[in-house]
C-alpha cells in the first residue's frame, strides 16, 4: 500500500513538470545564467518536497489521493502559487507577467485534468484504482501533446510584451487567466476525483474563453503598437521628404551656379584672361564640398529615422555622423524603425547626460549575408538598472526601459542577434541581421 502511495505522490508531482517548464519558458531569453541555475535548483527542490508532502499527508491522515479529491486540489494550488512565487522572486520585476503566464498554463492543464478524469470514468468495467491509473495515463499523454500549443500561446501573449513599455498591457490583462482558472477550479468540486459531463463542458467554455480573450487582447495590443510605429514612421518620412525638398532646391541652385561659372569661363577664354582663370579655379577649389545634409543609406525607412535624430541632435548641438548602407529586403521597414528608433533614442538621451563631447555615430554595413548596424554614442558613464534591466534616463522619475527587449525580439525573429556594450564614456549597440 505504501508503494502505491509513493507512486501516486510521484505521479502527481511529475504532472507538474510541464507546467513548471512552461512557466519559465517565456522568461528564458531574459534570465541570466545564475537565475537559470537558481530556478532549476528551486523547482527541483519544490518537486522533491511535494513528493514528501503528499506521501506524509497520505501516511499520517491514512488517506490516499485516489479517494481524496481535496488533497490533489490543495496540492495543485500550493504548487501553482509556489511556482509563481519562485519565478517572481528569481526573475524580478515581472510579477504580473508570471501570474498571467501561470494562469494560462493552469487553465489549459486543469482542463486536461478534468477531461482525463471524465474520460477515465467513462471507460466501462474499471475499479477505482484502475480508473485512477487510466486517468493518469490520459492526463500525462495530453500534457505532453499540449506542451507545444501552450508554448505557442505564450509566445504570442507573453513574450512580445516582456519589456517595460508594455506596462499598460499587463495592467489590463494580468489577472484574467488566473482569476478564470480560480473560477473553473472552485466551480468543479473534484470531491472524489469525479467529474460529470456538465462540469466538463463548463471547464471547456471557461478555458477556451480565457485563451481566446487573452489572444484577442494580445493581438489588439500588437496592432495598436504597429499603428503607433507606423504613425511615427509616417511623420519621420514627411520630415525626411521636406529635407529632400530643401536639398533639391540647393541642387537647383548649384546647377544654376555651374551654368554661371561656364559663362564666366567662356568670357575669360575669349578674353584670353589666364590670371582670371587661375583665380577662378582656386576660388572653386576652396569652396567646401560638404557632405549631403540628408542621409542616404539606400533604405527609405532608415533614412527617415536617421534624419529625424540628425535634426534633434543638431538642435542640441550634438555631433551626428552616419556612414554606410543598409540593403536588406528581408527586414521590414517597421522592424528597422524599431531597431534604429530605440537605439537612436537611447543614444540621444545618453548624449544629453554630458555637457561636452556629445557625439552620435551610426555605422551600417551590408555584406553578402549580413547587415550590421552600430549606434555609438558618448554618455556620462552612469548606467541605471532595475532587476538587471537597463533603465532609460529620458526623464526624471521615468522607470521605462531602453527598449532592449523589443530590439532583441526583432533581431531574434529574423535569426539575427544584438549586442550592447559600454565603457566609462561610450555606449554602443550592434545589430546583426541576415540579408
Amino acid at each position, binding site marked *: 500500500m505504501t508503494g502505491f502511495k509513493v507512486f501516486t505522490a510521484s505521479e502527481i508531482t511529475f504532472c507538474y513538470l510541464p507546467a513548471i517548464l512552461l512557466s519559465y519558458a517565456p522568461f528564458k531569453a531574459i534570465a541570466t545564467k545564475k537565475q537559470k541555475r537558481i530556478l532549476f535548483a528551486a523547482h527541483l527542490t519544490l518537486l522533491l518536497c511535494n513528493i514528501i508532502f503528499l506521501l506524509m499527508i497520505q501516511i499520517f491522515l491514512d488517506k490516499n489521493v485516489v479517494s481524496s479529491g481535496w488533497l490533489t486540489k490543495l496540492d495543485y494550488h500550493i504548487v501553482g502559487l509556489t511556482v509563481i512565487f519562485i519565478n517572481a522572486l528569481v526573475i524580478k520585476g515581472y510579477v504580473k507577467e508570471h501570474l498571467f503566464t501561470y494562469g494560462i498554463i493552469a487553465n489549459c492543464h486543469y482542463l486536461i485534468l478534468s477531461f482525463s478524469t471524465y474520460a477515465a470514468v467513462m471507460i466501462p468495467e474499471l475499479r477505482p484504482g484502475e480508473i485512477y491509473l487510466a486517468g493518469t495515463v490520459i492526463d500525462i499523454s495530453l500534457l505532453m501533446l499540449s506542451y507545444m500549443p501552450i508554448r505557442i500561446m505564450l509566445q504570442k501573449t507573453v513574450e512580445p510584451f516582456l519589456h517595460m513599455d508594455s506596462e499598460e498591457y499587463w495592467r489590463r490583462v494580468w489577472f484574467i487567466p488566473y482569476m478564470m482558472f480560480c473560477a473553473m477550479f472552485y466551480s468543479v468540486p473534484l470531491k472524489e476525483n469525479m467529474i460529470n459531463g456538465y462540469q466538463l463542458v463548463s471547464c471547456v467554455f471557461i478555458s477556451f474563453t480565457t485563451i481566446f480573450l487573452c489572444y484577442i487582447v494580445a493581438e489588439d495590443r500588437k496592432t495598436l503598437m504597429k499603428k503607433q510605429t507606423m504613425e511615427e514612421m509616417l511623420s519621420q518620412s514627411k520630415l525626411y521628404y521636406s529635407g529632400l525638398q530643401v536639398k533639391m532646391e540647393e541642387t537647383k541652385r548649384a546647377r544654376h551656379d555651374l551654368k554661371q561659372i561656364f559663362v564666366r569661363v567662356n568670357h575669360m577664354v575669349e578674353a584670353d584672361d589666364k590670371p582670371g582663370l587661375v583665380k577662378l579655379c582656386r576660388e572653386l577649389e576652396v569652396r567646401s564640398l560638404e557632405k549631403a545634409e540628408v542621409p542616404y543609406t539606400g533604405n527609405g525607412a532608415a533614412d527617415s529615422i536617421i534624419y529625424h535624430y540628425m535634426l534633434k541632435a543638431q538642435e542640441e548641438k550634438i555631433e551626428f555622423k552616419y556612414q554606410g548602407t543598409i540593403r536588406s529586403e528581408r527586414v521590414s521597414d517597421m522592424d528597422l524603425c524599431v531597431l534604429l528608433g530605440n537605439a537612436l533614442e537611447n543614444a540621444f538621451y545618453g548624449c544629453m547626460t554630458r555637457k561636452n563631447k556629445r557625439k552620435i555615430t551610426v555605422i551600417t*554595413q551590408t555584406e553578402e549575408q549580413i547587415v550590421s548596424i552600430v549606434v555609438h554614442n558618448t554618455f556620462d558613464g552612469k548606467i541605471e538598472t532595475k532587476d538587471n534591466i537597463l533603465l532609460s534616463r529620458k526623464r526624471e522619475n521615468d522607470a521605462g526601459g531602453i527598449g532592449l527587449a523589443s530590439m532583441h525580439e526583432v533581431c531574434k525573429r529574423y535569426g539575427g542577434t544584438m549586442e550592447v556594450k559600454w565603457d566609462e564614456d561610450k555606449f554602443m549597440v550592434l545589430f546583426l541581421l541576415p540579408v
Partner: protein
Amino acid sequence: MDSSLKFAVCDDVLQERKMIVDLLQEYMDIHDYSVKIDEYDTGEQLSAEATPVYHLVFLDIFMENTDGIQTAARLKEKNPSTQIVFNSVSNEYATQSYEVNALNYLVKPIQKEKIFSILDKYFHMYTSLKMLNYRQNRIDEKIYVSDILWIEAGDHKSIIHAKHGDIPTSTLLKNLAGQVDEKEFVKPIRYAIVSLAAIKEIPSDVLVLTDGTRIPISRSKRAEVSQAFKDYKMKKILQKGGII
C-alpha cells in the same frame, strides 16, 4: 619593402592620373620602397580577367562609361585583399564606398599630405600583417594569417584551408592555434579553429564560411562562438567608422 607590390591608378583624366602617380612615386622614393605602378583610364580594363591582381588601387568614382563603385566590387571579388582608395570631386559617394570596404576616400583636388597619410596607413597595415609558421615536408613555411579561412586537425597533422587552397602541414592544431589572435579566431569544435573574418552567416548551430564550408558548432561552444562573432563584428565596424 617587398618589390612584388603592385599599385594601380585608374582615372579617365590623364592629368589627375599623372598627378597621383607622381605623388606615389615621390612617396616611394622618399621611403626607398620599390612598387610597380600601373595606369588605367577605364574600370573595364582594370577589372578585366587578364589584368594582374593589385595590392592598392586608386580609383576615380566617375569615369566615362564606368562606375567606380562597381569596378571596386569586381576587384574585391577577384581579390578580397585588394585595398581601394576612391578619388572623386565630392564626397557624395563616400557612404556607398563603405559597401566595398574602401581603405579611404580622397576628395579632389588631390593633396600631397592626404595621399602620403593614406600611404602611411597602408604600409603600416601591410608591414603589421601577421604570419603563421607551420612545417611542411620538413621545411618551415609561413602564411599570412589574413589568408586563412580555417584550420582542421588531422592525425598528427593539420590542414590549413586558405583562400588560395588547402595546405597540409605536419604541425599540430594546438601549436597553430597558439600563434593566432584569440579575438580573430574561434574554436567551434574540437577539431577546427576558424577565422572570424571568414564567417559569412550569423552563427547558429553551424558556421558557414565564405567558401561555402559548413563547420558544426558543438552545443557547449554556441554561446562562446556567437559572442566572439559579435565582438569581432563590433570591433571591425568601429574601426571602420574611425571610432577605435
